[in-house]
């Protein structure tokens, strides 16, 4: 199988390439990016793998089409996704190539889902939103819900540490997600909540601990009702970095909301990079999913969580999707992870690859000294 990675010089693509070494039968990996210098360096670093660099102008449809024709499977790591995703999926359908992406923009996922009939006619399989969140978060929501007889609500919480390793596209996604109406589900109906509002404290496993989370524009509340039927409320809240830096980024995002001049946006983006990329290199992340409802006639809740390096986890989930695509007979069409990857074999693959899912339970007594193994290492 020949794989083309779009946005290969980015942080998420680097992690995906690292995880792809676990997939057998990869004939060639084409690394496509606009940054030719970074591509040459990456190709030299990955000389032990069957990689070939390819210059890509993602704003040019014919350049996209030409690159896609070389491969059997396209991996979309090219953000910000609100800018590229729709165009890339149309090019993949035109080229007749399967496509898996890390897309995390709610609007783009809705746009891509609408292309389902077109993809089915072209015999193309598209899997959209296949990273840590959305992606693994969707699968955890399905698993947490399956433990209950009836699900009333699903709460998704995400923590992302800011640091020098944070990618530019991730930062742009965050700034966009801090503005506008976040998709939520209330009383079984789609609704919206002001991004950044309704703060509450959420507990993550150590070393993340208690964090103040607030609404963020993410696609899970919009896509999960198709897989978890009958759930009344779904919402997504997040915390980015420390309280002070999170508030600063929120403020910058609000200042850039609406129609602004390019100069103003550039100034805000520069300030955001200065705030977000200070300090530690790694981007520790945690996703916590809480499903509440009824089990055996009594109220229960199920809490599942993962923690580790943000890009490493995202790359791992993408590689699991590639593995699933090569093994399973998925019919052509457009899918979200919960529609196709909620399978014991996928979880077994992720476990073998080093992913450890945690269950949160009410404390029986003090239990100091836990150590949580994650793909990012061991956290005490």
């Amino acid at each position, binding site marked *: 199988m020949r794989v083309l990675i779009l946005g290969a010089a980015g942080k998420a693509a680097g992690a995906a390439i690292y995880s792809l070494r676990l997939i057998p039968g990869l004939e060639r990996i084409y690394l496509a990016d606009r940054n030719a210098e970074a591509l040459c360096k990456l190709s030299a670093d990955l000389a032990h793998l069957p990689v070939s660099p390819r210059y890509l102008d993602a704003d040019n449809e014919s350049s996209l089409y030409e690159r896609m024709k070389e491969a059997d499977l396209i991996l979309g790591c090219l953000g910000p996704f609100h800018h590229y995703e729709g165009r890339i999926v149309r090019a993949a359908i035109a080229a007749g190539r399967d496509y898996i992406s890390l897309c995390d923009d709610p609007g783009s996922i809705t746009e891509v889902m609408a292309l389902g009939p077109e993809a089915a006619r072209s015999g193309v399989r598209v899997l959209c939103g296949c990273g840590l969140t959305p992606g693994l978060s969707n699968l955890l929501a399905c*698993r947490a819900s*399956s*433990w209950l007889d009836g699900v009333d609500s699903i709460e998704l919480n995400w923590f992302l540490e800011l640091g020098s390793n944070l990618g530019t596209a991730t930062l742009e996604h965050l700034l966009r997600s801090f503005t506008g109406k976040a998709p939520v589900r209330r009383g079984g109906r789609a609704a919206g909540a002001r991004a950044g509002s309704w703060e509450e*404290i959420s*507990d*993550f*496993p*150590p*070393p*993340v*601990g*208690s*964090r*103040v989370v607030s609404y963020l524009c993410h696609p899970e509340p919009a896509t999960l009702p198709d897989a978890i039927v009958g759930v009344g409320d779904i919402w997504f809240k997040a*915390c980015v970095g*420390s*309280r*002070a830096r*999170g*508030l600063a980024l929120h403020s910058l995002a609000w200042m850039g909301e609406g129609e602004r001049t390019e100069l103003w946006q550039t100034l805000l983006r520069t300030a955001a990079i200065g705030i977000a990329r200070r300090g530690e290199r790694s981007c520790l992340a945690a996703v916590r999913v809480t499903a509440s409802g009824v089990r055996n006639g009594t109220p229960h809740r199920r*809490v*599942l*969580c993962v923690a580790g390096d943000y890009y490493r986890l995202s790359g791992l989930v993408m590689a699991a999707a590639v593995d699933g695509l090569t093994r399973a007979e998925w019919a052509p069409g457009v899918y979200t992870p919960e529609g196709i990857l909620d399978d*014991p074999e996928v*979880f*077994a693959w992720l476990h073998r690859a080093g992913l*450890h*899912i*945690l*269950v*949160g*339970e*009410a*404390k*029986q007594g003090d*239990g100091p000294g*836990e150590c*949580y*193994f994650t793909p990012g290492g061991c956290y005490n």
Partner: protein
Amino acid sequence: MRAAAPAVLIAMTIVLAFLAWRGLKAGSAGDISTELAWREADEEDLF
């Protein structure tokens, strides 16, 4: 009334500064104690 205005302004500033400090402190990374006990999920926990 006008004489009391600076005092009211200073008091309000102090209260707001205190609330901001508390808010920032609540969200900082210091507190890793959680209400939940965490354990690794096995296959039966998931399927």
